[in-house]
């Protein structure tokens, strides 16, 4: 199945080597990844009948056609884009900030480095729980702080139909920023310190050093972490469920929420499968576009 047409002598040893290494991965993939995937694909082309227990009959593209006319699903797409756009941007920027700060020879950074991982250490649904108490109107932390600082006089309702998804974005960015920070921190370790010394000799200031030494070297970390967080955000569900419950109404329901509602609340398994394939399609396109834009941007930003 996989025989590269090459005649170099090294290839044989390479090939056997690779197959040894890949065996566990391939075996596992076959057993528990490929099957569920094909099952879900198969399911998406069925129609379910509840008469005399749950049965499936082939329904072609009916489920896919149904999705295009599902107002909740169509509505959830711009909401998802807002959620992903906002929380990824926030998480990456905060993460970069933390990483740069923790890379400085500051007092107590060892402790902080360990502590800073805490928001990520909390599960997604616990993040939702904590932040639901931050936003609560009467006993919430945010209103209390703003009142104590004298910024507001009466309590503000934070989770409104218009900005519900923003509240989730902030909570999720808080949860994800440490992950970004650790990736950037790891990336920073690969930058040779000589480069900074040379830049200093050339008279480059802090900003200039950041732009022409740090940033170009972080481009790979940036690409990896942005895509990773985008995917994690797009597929996340628990935070929204515990923070806003997808509401008010469906104002903060991303497409995974709708998949969840349709599949497990309404037990439309086949339809849920079809919706998930739409979700995959959207996320794949999103990531490919991001990947292209970012590699292009990096190419223009000059070589290292």
């Amino acid at each position, binding site marked *: 199945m996989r025989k*590269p047409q090459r005649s170099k002598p090294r290839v044989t040893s*390479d*090939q056997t080597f690779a197959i*040894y290494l890949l065996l*566990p*991965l391939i075996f*596992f993939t076959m057993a*528990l*990844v490929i099957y*569920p*995937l094909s*099952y*879900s694909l198969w*399911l998406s082309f069925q129609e379910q009948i509840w008469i005399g227990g749950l049965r499936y009959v082939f329904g072609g593209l009916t489920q896919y056609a149904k999705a295009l006319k599902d107002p909740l699903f169509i509505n959830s797409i711009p909401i998802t884009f807002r959620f992903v756009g906002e929380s990824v941007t926030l998480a990456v920027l905060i993460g970069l900030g*933390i990483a740069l*700060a923790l890379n400085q*020879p*500051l007092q107590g950074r060892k402790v*902080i*480095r*360990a*502590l800073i*991982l*805490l928001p990520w*250490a*909390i*599960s*997604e*649904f*616990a993040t939702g*729980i*904590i932040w639901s108490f*931050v936003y609560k109107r009467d*006993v919430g*932390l945010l*209103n209390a702080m703003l*009142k104590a600082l004298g910024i507001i006089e009466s309590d503000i309702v934070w989770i409104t139909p218009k900005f519900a998804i923003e509240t989730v974005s902030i909570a999720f960015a*808080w949860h994800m920023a440490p992950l970004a920070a650790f990736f950037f921190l*790891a990336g920073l*370790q*690969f930058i040779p310190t000589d480069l900074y*010394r040379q830049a*200093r*000799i050339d008279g480059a200031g802090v900003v200039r050093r950041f732009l022409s030494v740090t940033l170009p070297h972080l481009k790979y970390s940036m690409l990896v972490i942005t*895509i*990773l967080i985008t*995917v994690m955000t*797009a*597929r996340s*569900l*628990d935070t929204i469920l515990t923070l806003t419950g997808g509401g008010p109404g469906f104002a903060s329901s991303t497409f*995974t929420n709708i*998949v969840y509602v349709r*599949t*497990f609340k309404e037990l439309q*398994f086949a339809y849920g499968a079809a919706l*998930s394939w739409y*979700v*995959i399609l959207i996320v794949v396109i999103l*990531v490919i576009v991001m990947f292209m834009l970012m590699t292009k941007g990096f190419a223009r930003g000059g070589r290292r």
Partner: protein
Amino acid sequence: MNVQIPKPNKARKIAGKIGIYTAFAILVFTILFPYFWMVTSSLQREIDLYRPPPFPFKPVKFTVFHYGELLSYPPFTEGLVNSALVALITAGFVMTAGSLGAYALVRTRFKVNRVLLQAIVIFYMLPGVALLIPVATVERALGLIDTLPGVVFAHSVFILPLMTWMLASIFRGVHMDLEEAGQVDGLSRFGTMFRVVLPLSITGVMIVTVFCFIISWNELMYSSVIGVRDFKMLQPVILEFMGPMKQVIPRVMAAGVFSSLPVIALAVILQKYIIKGIMSGAIK
């Protein structure tokens, strides 16, 4: 560690330091405050928490009542043990299969490699809900429901692809020259992997291992479906505390603190490896 050759302007340097420290303090405060708040509200009596003004702005009595309550609740302690076992085994399994696979994908030149890596990423993009039913079906057929291997496999389904991809990106960061030098010195392919690539990327590998553990430890959906009755996992037990009728906030918060403890321990270990990574970088 930081030797400056031309001395920058002293006043500017101090101003810069102050700027860095301020920014640093704000960042740390924002990041840590909600967590700190969770810890402190877990130490409150329930009634105190609901009476305005909200908790940090009023005098309070601290109590460890809710922690004791949790530790004397068998499903909770059971969940702690089970989740720890599952997370450890998952991390071990995923790191073994994942790092071998990732290394093969990065360092051997097959045309399929690129496609495989992309397929892995695409697989991870599937919303977890979408695979839940198929995975549960497979596990039921294999009789893995309510067993330790069952939960480990279910977690590996979505952790392994992600980690393979992350490891691949880490291994790619190791300079090819060093590996070639290893091979010139007579190391085998496996030798270069274990003696050159792994030590050089140990920081990243340790971070990924810890991430593995944390993702598995925090996972809710698969844990609750695969470990339904006889194999209680921690997160579903915590979620039970959130039920609309019996929601006791300090208890939920205490449970949240408990579930973050192993992660704090791991973060300390991780810290050591990050420093090691820096040192080896400096020596090189």
